[in-house]
């Protein structure tokens, strides 16, 4: 948005460890945050494997009940506070300034400080493993009174609480900075309605972060006071109040963990179909409605408490069908008429949409209180949210990685290994999470360290454990792919995929201040596609044109192109 003066160099610019750790370059911070979250992802994955081993057969006692409780608490906390949410934010820190043609992120020092606050929180949370009583062990939502000092004594739970406060504080600040970046630093010509689809998804996520994460910090601060002996959450109303405060954060966060990956998958689909994303205006409107609705559904986690008005929350939760349906309509309409290349990123993006669908449809199911009275706290819920977060967000994350890896590193990931990674992950995911729907319906509650040997339960659980092994294999394949692709580089150049958005109009990786050449004219949400189409028209290439006169089907948007 504004010209950039030579940097004020406070220390001679070092490529040293200190330089990488204290850099205010949004790309460096984004990369650091992405790498740190990836490490937490691997850690959380190991916890999941330990749990699946314990549950492979009834009465295994591979780990103790106490350890099992720590494992599922820390698995959930790690994946939500330290992997999926921060990974979505890391994508925002790295890509949003590039997509809107900015030279830097707004308030880079704040972003840098927020990254370190978040990382300290993550480390402090994990330090609980070293304490005598063990790590946090009252579930990732730490309901009172279970999480108070009488029922869960020990430093581990304190460290968990403080860790969550710090992680959430860091994420809140980053959300605010992303919001400020989008509001204030768009390049000349980029009106709000020309922002890329991915940037829009990050914008609505940032709105939700800023509106809901402070409530978590409040809830955790009150919980901490409660653990120190203050009587904050008293009796029945105290228990309900805690749940209201927690889920006012806890439901929006699942959409913060979803929207950015939806945006990533949408970009990947549009680029690999060589066609701009369909229904932009409807998409934007539905994203705003989606985000507003998802701020108002939280008490569907509390249908069985008798303390909330179930109808209101059933209404808002079911209403999510409308914006979600619009996204799917746009996805299919983008594919139709395109010229589709099934690169690895595209496979993951399609996998994201089709597998998330199972999570989404089962979400409508449990939005009905009558159905939720059975499904709540059973493995049906576990299946549902793993289909949204793992089969959804993680597939969207991998789609984004295969898509933007060349931009970040300058080298492409291997397609062969990528396809193997995709197939393994697809098989592993469905092997692990599909049987959970059936187990839940048969009556298996979540968070149990052992289960009765009812007929069929052992078999289904064994299948899930095997599936978890396949997922581990898939993740290992991905890591091998990264190492191989960085060792033997397949140089990508500026724009390996015929991208649509501004991040593809600069070198890979981009220079310190992102763009050294003049930006292309920003004529729509896909400026580079506009350029290519205009060039093709000038060259008189035969272009497929939709017959004129069909309602709403126009040619390339060119309003006030310079």
């Amino acid at each position: 948005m504004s010209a950039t003066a030579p940097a004020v160099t406070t220390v001679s610019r070092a490529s040293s460890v200190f330089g990488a750790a204290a850099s205010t370059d949004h790309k460096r911070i984004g990369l650091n945050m992405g790498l740190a979250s990836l490490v937490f992802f691997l850690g959380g994955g190991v916890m999941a494997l330990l749990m699946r081993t314990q549950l492979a057969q009834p009465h295994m006692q591979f780990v103790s009940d106490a350890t099992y409780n720590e494992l599922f608490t820390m698995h959930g906390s790690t994946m939500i506070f330290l992997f999926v949410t921060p990974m979505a934010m890391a994508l925002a820190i790295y890509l949003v300034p590039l997509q809107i043609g900015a030279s830097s992120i707004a308030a880079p020092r704040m972003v840098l400080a927020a990254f370190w606050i978040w990382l300290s929180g993550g480390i402090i949370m994990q330090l609980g493993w070293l304490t005598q009583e063990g790590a946090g062990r009252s579930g990732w939502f730490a309901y009172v009174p279970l999480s108070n000092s009488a029922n869960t004594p020990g430093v581990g739970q304190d460290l968990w609480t403080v860790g969550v406060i710090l992680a959430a504080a860091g994420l809140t600040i980053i959300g605010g900075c992303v919001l400020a970046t989008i509001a204030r630093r768009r390049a000349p010509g980029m009106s709000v309605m020309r922002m890329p689809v991915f940037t829009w998804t990050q914008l609505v996520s940032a709105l939700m972060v800023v509106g809901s994460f402070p409530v978590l910090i409040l809830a955790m601060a009150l919980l901490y006071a409660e653990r120190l002996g203050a009587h904050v959450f008293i009796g029945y109303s105290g228990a309900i109040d805690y749940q209201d405060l927690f889920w006012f954060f806890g439901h929006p966060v699942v959409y913060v963990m979803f929207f950015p990956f939806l945006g990533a998958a949408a970009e990947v689909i549009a680029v690999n179909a060589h066609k701009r994303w369909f229904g932009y205006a409807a998409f934007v409107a539905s994203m705003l409605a989606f985000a507003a609705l998802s701020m108002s559904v939280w008490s569907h986690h509390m249908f069985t408490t008798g303390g909330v008005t179930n109808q209101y929350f059933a209404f808002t939760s079911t209403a999510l069908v409308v914006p979600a349906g619009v996204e799917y309509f746009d996805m299919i309409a983008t594919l139709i008429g395109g010229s589709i290349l099934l690169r690895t990123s595209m496979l993951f993006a399609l996998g994201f949409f089709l597998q998330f669908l199972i999570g989404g449809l089962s979400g409508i199911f449990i939005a009905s209180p009558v159905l939720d009275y059975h499904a709540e706290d059973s493995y049906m819920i576990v299946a549902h949210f793993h289909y949204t977060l793992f089969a959804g967000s993680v597939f969207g994350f991998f789609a984004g990685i295969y898509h933007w890896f060349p931009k970040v590193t300058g080298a492409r990931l291997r397609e062969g290994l990528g396809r193997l990674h995709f197939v393994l992950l697809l098989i592993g995911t469905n092997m692990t999470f599909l049987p959970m729907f059936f187990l839940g319906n048969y009556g298996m509650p979540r968070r149990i360290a052992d289960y009765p040997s009812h007929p069929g339960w052992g078999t289904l659980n064994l299948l899930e454990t095997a599936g978890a092994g396949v997922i581990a294999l898939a993740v290992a394949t991905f890591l091998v792919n990264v190492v191989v692709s960085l060792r033997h580089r397949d140089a990508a150049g500026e724009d390996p995929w015929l991208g649509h958005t501004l991040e593809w109009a600069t070198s890979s990786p981009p220079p310190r201040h992102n763009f050294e050449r003049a930006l292309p004219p920003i004529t729509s949400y896909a400026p580079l596609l506009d350029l290519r189409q205009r060039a093709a028209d000038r060259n008189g290439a035969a272009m497929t044109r939709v017959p004129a006169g069909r309602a709403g089907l126009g040619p390339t948007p060119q309003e006030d192109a310079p």
Partner: protein
Amino acid sequence: MGLGAPTGLVDTRAEYQHVFDIYVPIAIGVFALIVIATLLAVLVYRRRPPERAARWYEHDRLEGGYALLLVATVAFLLYITFTAEHRVDTVAARERPGLVVNVTGSKWEWHFNYPAYGIDLYSGAVGRQDLVVPTGEAIRFRLTSVDVIHAFWIPQLRYKHDLIPGSVQDSTLTFSRRGVFAGQCAEFCGLLHSDMIFDVRALSPAEFTTWARSQQAAGGGAA
């Protein structure tokens, strides 16, 4: 409705099944439709030269019409859900119970108290006694907890409700057939959460009366 409940009492299992039978086929249909449409689009438009990609990019009327269809679907689903929820939550609460059982959760044990008979039963980490109930009668469970939140779940009835310290909440349930069904705590409640289980033994009303008499004779039910 009152599907499958010969007595006319609210049968939570039947209500669940009724809603399930509407929701799940719609969900499977939508899933199949979207998967087929996506895969067809990918197959048909695969590997054409990029210049041949179409340039149209919006159709507000079509999309608006589709959104209206979604709104109608939401309205239909909510109608189904709200009528069933009304029966499970409101109509059932108005029924005259044939039996009242006080259910108290504690770490990690269930305490079932029959005030009309003076019977106390316990099940959980320390031992297992069955919750014994008559069939075909509304049973009012008065749910509370002494320490942390637990949840009273009988999968056979497709119903659970939380036990929250500081409150006593009523759930009115009916067992429509005889048998032994599993029950357990569904809300994570600490170290031995997985051991907080019980069995429900549903007897015919006559059998139940006999059982209750014998328990009383044995002196308050230390079975």
